[in-house]
């Protein structure tokens, strides 16, 4: 027997904030798109987009891991590695984004491979962090223990950087299959980020209807991008969905800042709420992935022709 519906506090203020935030984010996204003036052929432009996407992922991971490892007191010396490598990745990826013709050079490639490998090692450390707690792999530890998303994002950043380099090589694989594989990776990236955001929003009991955004639009984008890898007809669907996902990546920190504001003490209590409240640097992962994805779509189109 279901409990009777009981009056809950009105959601109107939350919906108003959500509308304003999304509008602002859409505006920022539009401005970013206007400012983005990629040069060269589609491969170069794809390399730029992958570089930019990787750079954004690295910013997200650098800030997020710095804050979270600070929360952990850098108790384990290895915790310095995460933020440091994210900065290294940021440097290399930014270099690629501004000089896509250099994307295939050894230096950025090795840097990004190292960054990607660090992400995998980080995943190992984080798994250990979860498994050593009472309850091991239970929901409580997954909610509050070390997350999979940040080290995984570092690995993705590394991969995007490497693929950017490959885009400029003359191998046949680049022309025939790499765009599809890249699209598949984008779809996978999106789904992974959806899983993490969704899980943490589930931890927050989806108390604000806006929290459903990252588990609705990006999964559709993932399906569309994955579809675009298979058929060109999905491309016109994938593009707006990726743009919408990018807007969510911009809106996320604004939403999270509002979430911190709603907590006890609001921003005045920042020293606690930066740690306890919704994580500010996490949502731009969606922006990074979507940016990379938008750079790859034209290749898929070209491929179809």
């Amino acid at each position, binding site marked *: 027997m279901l409990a009777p519906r009981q009056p*809950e506090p009105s959601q109107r203020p939350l919906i108003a904030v959500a509308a304003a935030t999304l509008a602002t984010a859409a505006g920022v996204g539009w401005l970013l798109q206007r400012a983005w003036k990629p040069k060269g052929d589609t491969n170069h432009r794809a390399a730029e987009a992958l570089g930019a996407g990787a750079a954004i992922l690295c910013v997200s991971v650098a800030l997020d891991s710095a804050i979270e490892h600070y929360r952990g007191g850098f108790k384990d010396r290895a915790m310095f590695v995460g933020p440091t490598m994210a900065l290294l990745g940021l440097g290399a990826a930014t270099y690629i984004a501004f000089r896509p013709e250099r994307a295939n050079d050894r230096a950025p490639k090795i840097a990004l491979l190292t960054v990607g490998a660090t992400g995998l090692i980080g995943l190992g450390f984080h798994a250990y962090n979860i498994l050593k707690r009472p309850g091991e792999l239970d929901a409580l530890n997954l909610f509050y223990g070390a997350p999979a998303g940040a080290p995984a994002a570092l690995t993705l950043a590394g991969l995007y950087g490497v693929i950017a380099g490959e885009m400029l090589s003359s191998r046949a694989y680049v022309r025939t299959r790499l765009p599809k594989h890249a699209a598949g990776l984008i779809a996978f990236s999106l789904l992974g980020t959806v899983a993490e955001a969704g899980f943490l929003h589930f*931890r*927050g009991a989806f108390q604000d209807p806006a929290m459903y955004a990252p588990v609705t639009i990006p999964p559709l984008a993932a399906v569309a991008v994955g579809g675009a890898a298979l058929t060109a007809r999905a491309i016109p669907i994938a593009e707006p969905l990726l743009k919408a996902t990018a807007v969510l990546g911009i809106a996320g920190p604004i939403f999270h800042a509002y979430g911190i504001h709603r907590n006890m003490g609001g921003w005045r*209590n920042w020293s606690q709420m930066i740690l306890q409240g919704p994580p500010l640097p996490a949502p731009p992962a969606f922006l990074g992935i979507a940016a990379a994805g938008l750079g790859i779509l034209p290749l898929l189109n070209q491929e179809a022709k």
Partner: protein
Amino acid sequence: MLEVAEPRAINGRAPDVFREGKWVPMRCYDDSEEVDFAIVGTGAGGGTLACKLAEAGFSVVTFDAGPFWRPLEDFASDENWQGGLFWTDERITGGADPVELGSNNSGRGVGGSTVHYTMIALRWRPEWFKCRTKLGYGRDWPISFDELEPYYEEAEEALQISGPIRYPWGRRRKRYPRRSHPVNAPGLVLARGCETIGINWSPVPLATLSSPRGMAHPCVYRGFCAYGCSTNAKQSVLVTFIPRALRAGAEVRDLAMVGRIDMGKDGKATGLTYHRRGEWRHQKAKHVVVAGYAIETPRLLLNSKCSQFPDGLCNENGLVGTHIMIHSGPGVWGVLDEEIRQYKAPPCMAVTEHWNYDDSDKKDFHGGYAFMSQGPLAVGWAQCVAINRGMWGMKLRQEMTRYNHVAGLRIVGETEPQRHNRIEVADEKDQYGLPIPRMTFSYSENDRRLMKHSIGSMKSVLEAGGAKDLWIDDDTSHLMGGCRMGDDPNDSVVDKDGRSWSIPNLWVCDGSLFPTSGGVNPSLTIQALACRIGDRITHMSKRGEL
């Protein structure tokens, strides 16, 4: 000491507990207006019922002897100052095992003891409702778990309980409305210990928010739960059922001590006599509900004696005030090499109910107990050490510097209903001129054997969790019984709906209804009972049975 001098819920408005300095409109009734329901007490029983009845369309006035708190503004982070939350009118406690009252188990204010409770929201083991029939001890309740189950769910939804995805005990259930909180260090000691010895543990399902709810903030883990939540994360009745009751047209009268239930010549209640703003007043009502918790409810019934009911109301069989129960609470403490800092977060974050559900090891006693990790603050801890260990002097000061390395466990232990454990009224009068209550309590042999067994269990878990230098203390929690419900008018004070057998418009709706005590904190069960009684009253009213 925290106090509020003047009533706040008057002149058509009541405090808005979510907005500092703001008010919500409140419907006010005239004393001479015969409201449908006058409810004594605004706690887990009274406040919940006031909401249910008001939302069902009845006119309701509910009274509380204490103030209408504004948690965001009134509450300070200070144990001493927050003593104003508790019932500090004089009471006498005796018997072979006298129970500590006051801050131990008695709140005073709108929201009742849910303002200072530690938010533990556990359902009863289903068999306990028929413990005599199914488990061979105690006394059957007149209702079953099946009948109460939907109301447990209703209460949990209303309070947005933050609980684990999978709770290891009890019947399969819907997921808790909110996710559980991170478990603090004392809780992890319990968890480690339980895992090491091979029994289940769980984060405690708590009535405090793990994410925002409207204007209520999620918990900031400040640890002052037992002294009032200034975050409004705690989902006390004050911030849940009471605001709903007000919106549905109920009136709350704070700083209004009910002294007497007024009776008519026809043997039915006609209303209440209450003291507010310096004078005695009379409110007319069609029905009176007594929900003052297990001491004040029997006290009021006894103090309302009149020529028709010379032994007090509902007391023809002499049961009012009898069979009072507490939860025994021996505890075990130890010291760890790690820093535990038990002052952080709600005091009880992890629990094992192993010995509530597994009877295989109980060779010489019946009944159950749960135990939880603990988290006393400075004064609470100092007094615990000093009084239980008889420690003072430099030795105490030095011992207290180990505070941050202490972890402990304490049980919620079932005690048997015994007739001689009771609430009576003494000749001595309080500041209102009302005879004060006297509680008499002693443990039964079974209670003692249960406690002894529990100490052994707690020691195993605490040691396995890494603690050393273990020592044992003693305490109690909660109050239950005194107006037990039943199916037989000769053997109970009220029926299964809380309705008096002899006075058809007099009801009881609080912890005094409990015929047995169970081995978990009572508040969720009290609130479920109140939700059910609300539905029952609505149902009976529609059928003209009121």
